[in-house]
């Protein structure tokens, strides 16, 4: 790093060689430390996940006694059977799918055109409009006025509010805008204009096809948000039939509401020792779908996070 004089004399070269030789040893130690630390991180992240998986197929009595640690014991699939026969879970699943699909579609329909408009360098009002959006990132009216606004609109306890809430997230808007601005050459726009394109056609025919990467990122961000959201359902919805999966999970996992509805409860030795399996099974059944989406968008999302970091 530090600027050194050109090494002309032999001694200097000699010193340097020694230094490099010393480095070979210290670098090897360094490499070993890195390896150990990375294994440690890997295990710390992985173990809790692994535990949930093995607990979901092990005898619950053994799990509760803390005997199941690394491998499943007394394997059984009672928990999964219970989960799949529970109508509340299916209802929650259906609702969540509606919220995720409709919500994310709406998110894209609102975010992408707005991002395009804000990316146009010749759009005079763009800085004003951008400030209008960014201000809401740092200041808000608070929960109660928001609740009352939604209530005045008559949207409490409707499916609609859970779809349209957070239709556009400013952070995601900035990501999309920055992407469009930086990776779609302005020459394309000028050529399109000469060919008689207007903004709508250009957006639809050129910008959207070229924005696949950022659209994947947006789908991932918005989709995960909708999938995992329980807060909005908690505050703005009181109807059990509208509850998304996460609220159902909350009932089963945290409020310890009885599961196995309609089965007359779990009785007998086998059922008893598997009862808590349901909890673990529920955790897995609710997380796996969102994990399955991830590999498909993985190649894009690192890029997306990076774009988001560059505040434009």
């Amino acid at each position: 790093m530090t600027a050194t004089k050109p090494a002309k004399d032999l001694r200097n070269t000699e010193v340097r060689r020694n230094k490099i030789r010393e480095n070979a040893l210290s670098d090897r130690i360094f490499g070993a430390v890195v390896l150990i630390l990375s294994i440690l991180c890997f295990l710390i992240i992985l173990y809790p996940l692994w535990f949930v998986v093995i607990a979901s197929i092990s005898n619950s009595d053994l799990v509760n006694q803390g005997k199941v640690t690394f491998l499943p014991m007394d394997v059984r699939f009672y928990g999964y059977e219970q989960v799949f026969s529970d109508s509340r879970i299916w209802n929650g699943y259906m609702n969540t799918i509606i919220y995720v699909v409709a919500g994310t579609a709406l998110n894209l329909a609102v975010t992408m055109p707005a991002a395009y408009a804000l990316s146009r360098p010749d759009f005079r009002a763009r800085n004003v409009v951008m400030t209008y959006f960014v201000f809401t990132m740092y200041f808000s009216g608070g929960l109660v006025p928001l609740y009352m606004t939604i209530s005045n609109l008559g949207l409490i306890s409707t499916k609609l509010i859970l779809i349209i809430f957070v239709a556009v997230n400013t952070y995601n808007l900035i990501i999309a805008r920055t992407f469009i601005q930086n990776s779609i050459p302005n020459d394309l726009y000028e050529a399109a204009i000469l060919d008689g394109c207007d903004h709508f056609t250009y957006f639809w025919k050129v910008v959207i096809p070229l924005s696949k990467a950022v659209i994947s990122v947006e789908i991932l961000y918005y989709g995960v948000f909708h999938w995992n959201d329980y807060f909005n359902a908690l505050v703005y919805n009181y109807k059990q039939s509208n509850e998304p999966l996460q609220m159902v999970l909350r009932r089963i996992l945290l409020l310890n509401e009885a599961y196995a509805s309609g089965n007359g409860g779990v009785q007998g030795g086998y059922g008893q020792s598997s009862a808590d399996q349901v909890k673990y099974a529920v955790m897995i059944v609710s997380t796996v779908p969102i994990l399955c989406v991830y590999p498909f968008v993985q190649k894009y999302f690192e890029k997306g996070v990076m774009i988001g970091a560059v505040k434009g």
Partner: protein
Amino acid sequence: MKGSLKTGRSKRSIGWYLAHDWQLWVMLLPAVVYIFIFCYIPMYGAQLAFREYSFETGITGGKWVGFKYFEQYFTSSMFGTTLKNTFTISATSILLGFPAPIVLALIINQIRSSKWKRTVQTTVYIPYFISTVVMVSMLNVLFAKKGGVLSDFMKTIGLVSPKANLLGQAKYFVGMYVGSGIWQSMGWNSIIYIAALSSVDTQLYDAAKIDGANRWQRVVHIEFPVLVPTIMILLIMNMGGILNVGFDKVFLMQNTLNLSASQVISTYVYDVGVKSSQFSFGTAVGLFTNVVNFVFLLTANWVSKKVTGSGLM
């Protein structure tokens, strides 16, 4: 930035711009309207903090009472508790949670085997996708008082006393909250740093090697400085949320035993404002938080500009 159409720089009337830009305005309209309804109208409604709420006249029609509800909050016993809890959780999160992804990124970046690197990266991202409900449930089983695998492990190695109840004692709440937060978001937050590290000019490494810098020195003198601008921006953004302890996880982790450490401002606003319908009071507490956050953000931004020359605004 200031690029314009070929036709140029000549002065144009407002009418020309409207005719030229109307399509862009149409495309912006849904987002602008949405933000207006769900962000700006509630901001306007925040004046409820200074008014009595009445069912007949709505949010803005009640009698003006000035700072009555702020005083009520400041003098209530919950003021000290909620403020202290919120601040403790937030500050600990930033202090411990902020450096974690930076260190992780530096470690991952140093891994030589690309296969192992890929494996570690993919694994550390997974927890990000776990919902808060599932996360808290995992805490409940892993750290259960009896038979929790991780609480047993911690007791065995003497990290906590054998009688500790990690989920039910107020003194463990912050640790559990922050620890699980780091576990969940460390990997995801490291992406941004890993991406920044990949932009390091390889010539710098070669030059450093010739100058006799070992790997550790290269990390300290090349890689870390590359991360500094990213670190500063993220730090400022974090500071802006200092009183914004996420409602989600705290609310789910709350139980009657740990309430003295787990009642934070956001959960308190929910309790008084939404659940027990003290609308004006809830609004006042919320508004107070927002103003404090905003001041923190501006201060952090100002300090950063002074110190490093780069800021958010």
